[in-house]
């Protein structure tokens, strides 16, 4: 019962599967004969309005939130029932057609980038909240329900769904589960994996599986933990039950200014060392402040090298006690200015700048590229300074607005995609940041996922044996490797190519030169 590994299977299944992806690579053509064959098979099982294949219909699906990577899908299917999903997956399995699932398309790693030879499975019609039980503190929802819609539905019961990615107005719970999304408050309340109790999924064979459950510690292996963050590669979600938590009675946020990024980084460690787990602990550097303040008018300190936003929530008594402790820690850590939100309106204003970092970046630059590495907190100052040095070398601006409490960086590289040289430099700049994160003991992705974007850097973070094990795990669910193929796990060939571009120690040769 020997299981084949990725190495055994490294020979590409077909030319499309081996195609290199880079932001500058041309899109692969769709094969019209195959498209007709697959679309007509799908039309036999689904209503006509659920199957799209004309270019004007499929074009809107060519990319997700990482618009540097685009590919027109062969067919788009918008199922309306679980029976539709089962039918689509069985047809695709029988015809060996790749399937890429998509929620709201807000992902930032190209995880929902379509396959030229495949079906793009849009789950947007699965948009109903099926049940909300305030006493059991659970909500059972379809995958296309928006993250924020769950909290809105729970609000009358003074409950909410804790993970709050920045895109929560638009992103869906299905996408959140695929990526194991985080957010500003996950330092205290956990990631998606900590807040999902149950997932109902359909495998490529059309089997329905219940993972986890409403009772704790479901028997068998913890496949729910494995499924969360598996980027649409193990099965298609049709229903999930999430945990709701009581809304804290009160929240207040401290805005603390620092004269250097190192001092701000040290203050982050000091807070944690003092035994405090803030509800949120975010850093915005000088460039980030200069970028968002004119746009959001949050009242940020334009003089500071970096500001921290540190939130306390709980009962009024708890918050008063904790805010006093936080202020004392920041003062000892050399804060140059401290302000505490006096009311809810001011608290929301302080957060408005942080939450509007992306639109603000869009105002000051034609394009921006958001990175997502995580590092040990103690290396924050050092890594931020290294990124500043890279700005010089790549001649591109980079603002840092990120989850400091988790050590989860979000460097925003500002560039103009219409200038091929800038696009190439932005790409290389991003690669160098991710390599640095791995070098200091961190990871290439904290919450956005690997997708297609960080697939090369997986070669740096994992050994070939480990990458092969990921393939074996995938094949336990999806033996033909049809669900979101070519994402997350780099082939042997890709790693060899990538290795050739790098010298030992993670330094890129001729870092100032564009490369593809």
């Amino acid at each position, binding site marked *: 019962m020997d299981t084949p590994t990725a190495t055994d299977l490294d020979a590409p299944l077909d030319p499309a599967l081996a195609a290199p992806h880079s932001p500058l690579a041309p899109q692969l053509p769709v094969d019209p004969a195959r498209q007709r064959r697959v679309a007509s098979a799908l039309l036999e099982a689904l209503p006509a309005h659920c199957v799209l294949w004309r270019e004007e219909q499929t074009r809107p699906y060519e990319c997700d939130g990482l618009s540097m990577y685009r590919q027109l899908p062969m067919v788009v299917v918008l199922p309306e029932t679980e029976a539709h999903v089962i039918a689509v997956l069985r047809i695709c399995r029988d015809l060996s057609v790749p399937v890429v699932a998509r929620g709201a398309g807000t992902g930032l790693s190209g995880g929902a980038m379509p396959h030229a030879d495949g079906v793009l499975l849009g789950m947007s019609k699965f948009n109903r909240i099926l049940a909300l039980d305030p006493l*059991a503190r659970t909500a059972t929802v379809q995958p296309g329900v928006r993250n924020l819609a769950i909290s809105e539905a729970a609000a009358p019961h*003074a409950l909410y769904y804790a993970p709050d990615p920045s895109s929560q107005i638009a992103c869906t719970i299905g996408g959140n589960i695929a990526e194991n999304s985080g957010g500003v408050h996950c330092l205290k309340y956990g990631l998606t994996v900590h807040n999902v109790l149950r997932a109902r999924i359909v495998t490529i064979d059309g089997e329905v599986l219940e993972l986890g459950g409403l009772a*704790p510690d479901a028997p068998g292996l*913890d496949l729910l933990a*494995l499924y969360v963050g598996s980027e649409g590669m193990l099965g298609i979600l049709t229903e999930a039950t999430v945990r709701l938590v*009581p809304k804290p009675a009160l929240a207040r946020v401290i805005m603390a200014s620092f004269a250097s990024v190192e001092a701000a980084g040290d203050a982050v460690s000091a807070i*944690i060392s003092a035994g405090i787990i803030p509800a949120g602990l975010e850093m915005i550097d000088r460039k980030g402040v200069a970028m968002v303040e004119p746009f959001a008018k949050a009242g940020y300190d334009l003089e500071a090298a970096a500001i921290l936003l540190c939130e306390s929530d*709980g009962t009024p008594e708890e918050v008063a006690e904790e805010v006093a402790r936080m202020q004392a820690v920041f003062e000892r850590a050399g804060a140059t200015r401290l302000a505490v939100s006096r009311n809810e309106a001011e608290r929301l204003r302080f957060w408005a700048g942080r939450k509007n970092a992306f639109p603000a970046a869009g105002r000051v630059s034609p394009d921006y590229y958001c990175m997502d590495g995580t590092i040990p907190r103690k290396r924050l100052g050092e890594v931020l300074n290294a990124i500043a040095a890279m700005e010089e070398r790549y001649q591109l601006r980079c603002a840092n607005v990120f989850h400091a409490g988790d050590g989860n960086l979000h460097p925003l590289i500002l560039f103009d995609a219409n200038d091929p040289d800038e696009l190439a430099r932005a790409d290389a700049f991003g690669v160098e940041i991710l390599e640095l994160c791995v070098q200091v003991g961190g990871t290439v992705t904290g919450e956005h996922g690997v997708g297609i974007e960080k697939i090369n850097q997986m070669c740096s973070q994992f050994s070939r044996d480990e*990458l092969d094990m990921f393939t074996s795990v995938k*094949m336990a669910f999806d033996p033909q490797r049809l669900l979101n193929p070519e994402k997350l796990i780099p082939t042997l060939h890709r790693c060899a190519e990538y290795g050739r571009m790098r010298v030992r120690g993670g330094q890129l040769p001729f870092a100032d030169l564009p490369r593809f």
Partner: protein
Amino acid sequence: MQPSDLAPSGMTDALLARVREQILAAATDGIALAPTGGSTKAFYGNVVRRGAAPVQTLELGQLQGIRSYEPSELVLVARAGTPLVELEDALAQKGQMLGFEPPHFGSGATIGGCVAAGLAGPRRMAAGAVRDFVLGAECFDGRARLLRFGGQVMKNVAGYDVARLMAGSLGTLGVITEVSLKVVPAPAALATLALPMAQADALLAFDRWAALPLPISAAAWVDGLAWVRLAGARAALDAALTHLGRGQKPETPELAEVFWNSLREQTHPFFTPIFAPIQPASAAASPLQPAGPERLNLWRLALPARVAPLALPGATDTLIEWGGAQRWIHSNAPASQIRAAVSAAGGHATRFRCFNGADEPVFSPLPAPLLAIERRLQGALDPAGIFNPGRLHPST
């Protein structure tokens, strides 16, 4: 973290080399291996069996040492054989703890065994399960390849979360050699209330309280008392005590600690051996003399919220933990009868400690498609099927 805490790397390398050799030999000869730390949870799970071949112990208890621990990172990395007590002492010195409050079930308990068993203590419903705190794992697969998954940072979505999958896998996926765990600050203050309450009223109250922003870290019911532990800032505790206690004074810290520890370690009188014929309920609180040859099995029931008291075949008393989500009974009724009653309420039942009927499966059986995937996963990590075969899913 003192350098002296580290085992010399030469010694570790030699130990790892020995483990590797044993795995390779077992895979070649088709011998079942039972990875073992302190043998404190050997009772848990199905009997390990691989045909008629003998089962070999794979000793990991010597693979010790805290590899890194920096309180400001909230991350601790330790070799699998590191004693749980050593690790908890190191954390306590820095005012931190393991959030899931794991049971030891004996002085030799190791962190590797703790992760493999996936058992959590009274804090489970407030803080999370073992898997919620696993950040990374290093393990040998069935080909004796040393693999690392996850890492030492809080947020990491690179690759599938194989490290979390190790929690509760009962050593059936690989041989854990090192784990990295998220740790948490110990609460500033604790207070425990013991409120006289009928079981049904306690279950309703637990659900109602859990929906309020109260700092409840544990909730249990036994012998007509609802026990509630509050943890957090002093001011928050005082407010919550007023809300919940309605004037009743909290238990002394000493008594409270003894009580919660007796649930975590199952030393509470409820867990005293009970023998058929079944004793009157009131006698359960005192140590019993064997009244017959048959000791009753201890069952662990896992249930969703909002499940009223259950009448279960062959059982008289119940001890409730986790606000109603975990319940314990003693019963020698057939597994199928107990499971039918529990699954009708949306839960599952584990024969936690077995004294009778060892041929029935310990865990609630899985639907066939799910079992097929789990077997394929085990096959991916352990192609020769040598790691604790049958312990999680009975061999067919």
